[in-house]
């Protein structure tokens, strides 16, 4: 008869370090207090209404405001150094997080502005379209007569008249467009050319990256225009059947809210990392609230919605600056106060020092090198929001505004480093992720280093490289590596790797 002596057998209680996720390690949260006035109020209200993280609403509202600000403003950080006000932002969240609803709410005033502009221009468009059709008909008639004319001299005269009419055909004004959600880089160039060199590319998905990777151009990345449209550099654009144009200072804003999975592996896409595409984005990786929502809507108060719409509309309606002859339009210059410049300079210096070998930003110089510029742009946008109903170019950017921009940048910096990690920018973390993928696929609660080496030899030609990845996973609490004692002659047994028990139990 047995006494069932081992009935108490159970996993031993253990003190594992807190799990630090590979993808989003303890990231600080963005405080919307740094987003001024009506923009901050609206971002808070959207987040409450949709029960989404404030970072998502903040990111989308900032890009919407940057789209408007970039049309009319640029920041002079110091003499000879200018930054446009367009921003590229990515707020990644898993599916089911109402990203589309947030984006739709943030961009609603842009849609309304486009619609109103179309209404205003409708009669003019109709008039010019009619006039053009008449002229085209006249030209056609002249050409027809020329074809039938037996006198060569008269025929030539008629043909010349037809050509003259065609040369004078008026361009039909385009319906104003300020944003798009799905355009190839080539089409984007045409859109920029046709709409004042300023556009926003907004999407709640990550298809933008597919388009940039060359979805419609045999996988050949077409990044030139997009990269230049971040910095405002001149670019030649071919417009299909129409004559090519030169963009003097294209300003493209991008606002994306893709799933985190879209970001994984982006660093390996040809050109994305090396040419600085990924380093131009400001990333936010808020935690998903799914499973913790109250599922009780708090609708956006009408006054908050109206104030946002009015604020953004006012920014879109700013008059452009013109050159001294009163002709060519150009953005107004925003200047920094001495205190604001001092704040910005201290930030730039701190970032610079962190890029030294061995420091935190060593592996992220492509992003970090652009961070001071992004901070200046952000300060320009915040300044524009504060002075939306006035003339922001008549006031200097204050230290208070710059501080708010730098507070936002401090959070964005942490999130962006995590995002770059996720995309495979840090080689150690990228390697750790590869090893973890292998462990997860096989649901391996325990394995030896040798087994891992044999399975991953193609990726890790030397055990030392594999050990480095395992150490990164150990530091983050995913697993522990136990060095077995030498029990006798011959080669020592391979170290045993044990996965965090709660993860292994969940697999079972």
């Amino acid at each position: 008869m047995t006494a069932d002596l081992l009935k108490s057998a159970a996993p031993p209680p253990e003190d594992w370090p807190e799990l630090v996720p590979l993808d989003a390690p303890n990231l600080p949260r963005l405080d919307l207090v740094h987003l001024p006035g009506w923009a901050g109020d609206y971002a808070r209200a959207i987040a409450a209404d949709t029960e989404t993280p404030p970072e998502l609403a903040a990111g989308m509202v900032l890009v919407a405001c940057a789209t408007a600000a970039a049309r009319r403003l640029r920041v002079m950080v110091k003499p000879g150094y200018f930054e446009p006000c367009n921003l590229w932002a990515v707020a990644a969240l898993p599916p089911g997080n109402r990203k589309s609803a947030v984006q739709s709410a943030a961009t609603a005033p842009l849609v309304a502005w486009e619609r109103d502009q179309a209404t205003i221009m409708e009669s003019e468009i109709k008039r010019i379209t009619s006039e053009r059709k008449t002229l085209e008909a006249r030209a056609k008639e002249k050409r027809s007569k020329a074809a039938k004319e037996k006198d060569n001299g008269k025929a030539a005269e008629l043909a010349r008249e037809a050509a003259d009419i065609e040369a004078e055909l008026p361009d039909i004004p385009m319906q104003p467009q300020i944003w798009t959600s799905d355009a190839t880089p080539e089409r984007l160039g045409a859109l920029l050319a046709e709409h004042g060199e300023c556009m926003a590319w907004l999407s709640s998905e990550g298809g933008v990256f597919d388009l940039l990777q060359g979805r419609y151009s045999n996988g050949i990345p077409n990044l030139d225009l997009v990269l230049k449209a971040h910095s405002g550099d001149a670019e030649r654009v071919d417009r299909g059947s129409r004559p090519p144009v030169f963009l003097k200072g294209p300003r493209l804003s991008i606002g994306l809210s893709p799933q985190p999975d879209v970001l994984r592996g982006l660093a390996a896409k040809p050109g994305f990392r090396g040419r600085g595409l990924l380093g131009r984005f400001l990333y936010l990786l808020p935690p998903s609230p799914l499973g913790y929502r109250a599922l009780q809507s708090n609708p956006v108060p009408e006054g908050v919605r109206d104030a946002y719409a009015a604020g953004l509309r006012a920014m879109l309606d700013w008059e452009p600056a013109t050159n001294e002859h009163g002709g060519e339009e150009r953005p107004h210059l925003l200047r920094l106060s001495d205190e604001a410049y001092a704040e910005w300079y201290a930030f730039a210096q701190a970032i610079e020092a962190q890029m030294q070998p061995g420091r935190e930003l060593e592996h992220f110089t492509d992003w970090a090198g652009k961070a001071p510029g992004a901070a200046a742009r952000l300060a320009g946008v915040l300044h524009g929001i504060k002075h939306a109903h006035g003339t922001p170019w008549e006031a200097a950017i204050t230290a208070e505004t710059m501080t708010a921009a730098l507070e936002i940048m401090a959070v964005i910096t942490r999130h962006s480093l995590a995002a770059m990690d996720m995309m495979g920018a840090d080689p150690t973390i990228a390697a750790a992720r590869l090893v973890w993928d292998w462990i997860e696929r096989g649901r391996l609660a325990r394995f030896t280093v040798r087994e891992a080496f044999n399975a991953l030899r193609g990726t890790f030609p030397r055990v030392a490289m594999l050990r480095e990845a395992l150490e990164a996973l150990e530091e983050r609490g995913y697993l522990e590596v136990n060095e077995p004692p030498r029990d006798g002659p011959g080669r020592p047994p391979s170290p045993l790797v044990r996965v965090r028990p709660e993860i292994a139990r969940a697999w079972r």
Partner: protein
Amino acid sequence: MNNAISQFRDAMRSAGLVPPDVIEPGTLHRFPGSGKRPSNRAGWCLLFDDRRGGCFGDWSTGLSETWQAKSDKPFSRAERAAFARRVEEAKRQAEVERNARQADAAKRADAIWNAATPAPGNHPYLIRKRIQPHGARIHKGALTLPVMDFDGRLTSLQFLFADGGKLLLTGGRKRGCFIPVAGDMKDPARVIICEGWATGCTLADDEPTALVLAAIDAGNLEPVALAASRRWRSTELVIAGDDDRLTAGNPGATKAKAAAIASGALLALPQWPEDAPDHLTDFNDLAVWLAGGGV
């Protein structure tokens, strides 16, 4: 010169070893391992001829350290390389000696085991512990148990005397080795690892379908458990620990937990009824007490 020997001794002491009384430079010395009885030879040390360095270790714990005398000037690259070579040579020499001792012990174990006779069920130790012989043999009146490695080689023997005394064959390998108590080594459904053989016999009777291994002592639970977890990947492991409730730090429970954690095993400790006396420590004690015999 004596200063170097003194520093070398201090280094050994700080690693938890009790150095031998005499240390002759250039000679490999053997002495009791950490916490071992006087006849034990698991500790080893070698002070180099020039007395500027040396190394020492303990085969029972896996300790292996090097020592260098303090120097006024930094060592040159050549000196460092020479030191590393000498350390390697000393370790190799110590390992060769250890292997030779263990091989000799294994031969003696083989001879004793082959000459020993099956233990009768009425051996006083078996009666007192209320257990079956489970393959034990008799050598000079002592219950004799085989100590095996995971390759199936006999490495040593353990002797259990009627008065409860225990002895391991001198020089035999124990670390990472075990006494097979009962069960199928080829394809076990469950593997139970405990400290002592008597506890293993009780657990084998309690769970006849399991493979039961006795790790001999608490310090050997982890190496055996790790090796078992490598050998039987998908088999459930249970570490059945002793509960040394009256000993400071409860080494039995502490090391059983460490072994379970390291090997991913389940942990079981005796669940004492409220009226169980405090001096009971293991599953055999519990079973005997439950059976009404008292200990």
